[in-house]
């Protein structure tokens, strides 16, 4: 196992539960993973499986109805769970970890100039003087491929792809080392999407950024990810390097996800996964995927499987791989 120092982001046994009138929503359950410098992790899964909750738990942007929030999160080896909200805001959020929210391009403030909106994190987090912050905003905009003159424009003057670039510039202006991308291209057209992916690849190479990339599109995740984590019902079911995952995904759920991807060049008919994801209030007993799994046997309905280690950092949470040794709890 890697030592802490090499990992830029590390989560251990992370748990996040919300309390609602209907019961406790177990959105994130015992999630453990790590991310190295300039490495990208794609978190894939169907909607409602806790992907966005995990991201919000990492950057600690939580609603008020938290029932349980525990585990450890290390950013550059520093345990952030011990920090107070004030310390977290001053040291971590937007300084080390930034986030591009889902649909953020549509939440730009329509009455403020783009330049000011990009500069705002600097004014707030670094208490920078306005003219200096605007200079930095210009720089950030030109990095994402938008001409400096656009600082004087309003959001309605920009196209969808440009707005998405502005939102990325906003996240980058404070020079973070980790960027959380929550479905960054879900509202964009395919060609615009490919342009944004090109931009993200270039930024990763030039600035050594690490991405935590959330998507439900497995084909798209292959554009950025060095590592893939499959989430289902609040748990990570499989985690593997992209090279291994796209060739031989091991978990029955991952295999079904792969089979459901419509492809353009490869000739295979996509198949859908029967059933729907479970409620996170009353998840099934045992393995959470067993009601939809075609390979499920008796044990699956009763006991939750451990994470098995298939070698070369390929971890799978499934009873089919029981004979492999249990993964070291990092």
């Amino acid at each position, binding site marked *: 196992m890697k030592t802490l120092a090499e990992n830029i982001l590390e989560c251990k046994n992370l748990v996040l539960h919300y309390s609602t009138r209907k019961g406790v929503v177990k959105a994130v359950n015992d999630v453990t993973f790590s991310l190295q410098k300039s490495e*990208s992790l794609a978190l894939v899964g*169907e*909607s409602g499986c806790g992907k966005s909750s995990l991201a919000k738990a990492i950057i600690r942007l939580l609603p008020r109805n938290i029932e349980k929030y525990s585990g450890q999160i290390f950013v550059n080896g520093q345990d952030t769970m011990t920090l107070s909200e004030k310390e977290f805001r001053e040291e971590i959020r937007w300084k080390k970890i930034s986030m591009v929210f889902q649909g953020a391009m549509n939440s730009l403030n329509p009455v403020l100039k783009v330049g000011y909106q990009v500069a705002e994190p600097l004014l707030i987090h670094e208490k920078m003087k306005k003219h200096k912050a605007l200079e930095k905003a210009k720089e950030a905009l030109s990095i994402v491929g938008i001409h400096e003159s656009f600082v004087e424009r309003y959001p309605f003057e920009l*196209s*969808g*792809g440009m707005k998405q670039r502005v939102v990325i510039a906003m996240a980058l202006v404070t020079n973070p080392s980790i960027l959380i991308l929550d479905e960054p291209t879900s509202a964009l*057209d*395919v*060609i*615009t*999407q*490919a*342009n944004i*992916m*090109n931009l993200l*690849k*270039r930024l990763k190479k030039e600035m050594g950024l690490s991405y935590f990339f959330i998507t*439900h*599109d*497995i*084909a*798209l*995740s*292959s*554009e*950025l*990810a*060095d590592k893939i984590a499959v989430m289902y019902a609040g748990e990570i079911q499989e985690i593997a*390097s*992209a*090279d291994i*995952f*796209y*060739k031989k995904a091991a978990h029955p759920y991952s295999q*079904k*996800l*792969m089979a*459901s*991807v*419509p*492809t*353009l*060049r*490869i000739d295979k*008919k*996509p*198949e*859908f*996964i029967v059933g*729907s994801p479970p409620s996170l209030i009353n998840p099934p007993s045992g393995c959470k995927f067993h009601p939809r799994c075609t390979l499920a046997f008796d044990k699956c309905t009763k006991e939750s499987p451990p994470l098995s280690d298939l070698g070369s950092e390929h971890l799978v949470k499934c009873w089919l791989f029981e004979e492999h040794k249990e993964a070291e709890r990092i």
Partner: protein
Amino acid sequence: MNEELLRVSGLKKYFEMRKGIFSSPIYVRAVDNVSFSLGKGEAISLVGESGSGKTTLGKTLLRLYKPTEGQIMVKGKDITYVNTKELMWYRRVTSIIEQDPYGALPSFFTIYRILEEPLLIHKFGNSNERQKRICEVLEKVRLTPIEDFAQKYPHMLSGGQLQRVAIARALTLNPELVIADEPVSMLDASVRIEILTLLKELQETLGISFIYITHDLTTTKYFSERLFIMYAGKIVESGKMFEVIHNPQHPYTEALLKAIPDPDAENRKILRDIPPGEPPNLVNPPMGCRFHPRCPYKMDVCEKEEPLSFELEPEHISLCWLHNNRK
């Protein structure tokens, strides 16, 4: 091709806009000179980016918009300019499935009432016959047990189930043509395939013609036979699905195909070679070929004259000046 159901020629739909009361109007050319035909029981896909006019084309075909110019022939009848009253029969033979199932179904009606509505409007039988028909369509879209679903309200169902209700509603009057406008873009990846498989099945078993409107090329491949690529209000390339995907002729189609990744770990190591920029504003589309400002193969003629349509193979048509040189 089998019997022809729909023939469209030179169809245009311009929307008029005025900046002030006295200023002269300007036009948004959402659909500009579109011609094609559709056979009975055939499924075609209409693919384009947002703002390419694909939804407007769909709605104009259904006569939800009044065409500006051109002709729409359905089963030999010209319905281009007929009035609403005469359109009642056309409403019965066509229907639409919309993008957002959450918004398309009235929240204060039960599923049963939602499905009864078109039957009531078109004065279909008595209440027993209506009930029978509703049960039939619910079974067709596999919302079973029927009793469980009929009395529910839309908020009690999941997105995939709601889209099934919307499909059931589209089927109640036994239509011959269904336009599905982005029927799966709001749904989860695996539910998408489930709904598309259902649509394909209905097309095959009931012999309904489908026009599938989408921005997602990958999902069209298994669910339709012919492909129409739309850009800035025009159909720039059309042909058999396999041919267009494996041998694209128009530079825009080529770009579109290049932009779509197949799942492969090698993707992350390459930058995609795709044209920058975004589709033009349809108020002032570029002169000549509308794709020329983004086109990597641009020639002088592209800026001045609109490209002719070239039939490269039987039924494989592309609107690009490049083919002029090759011929």
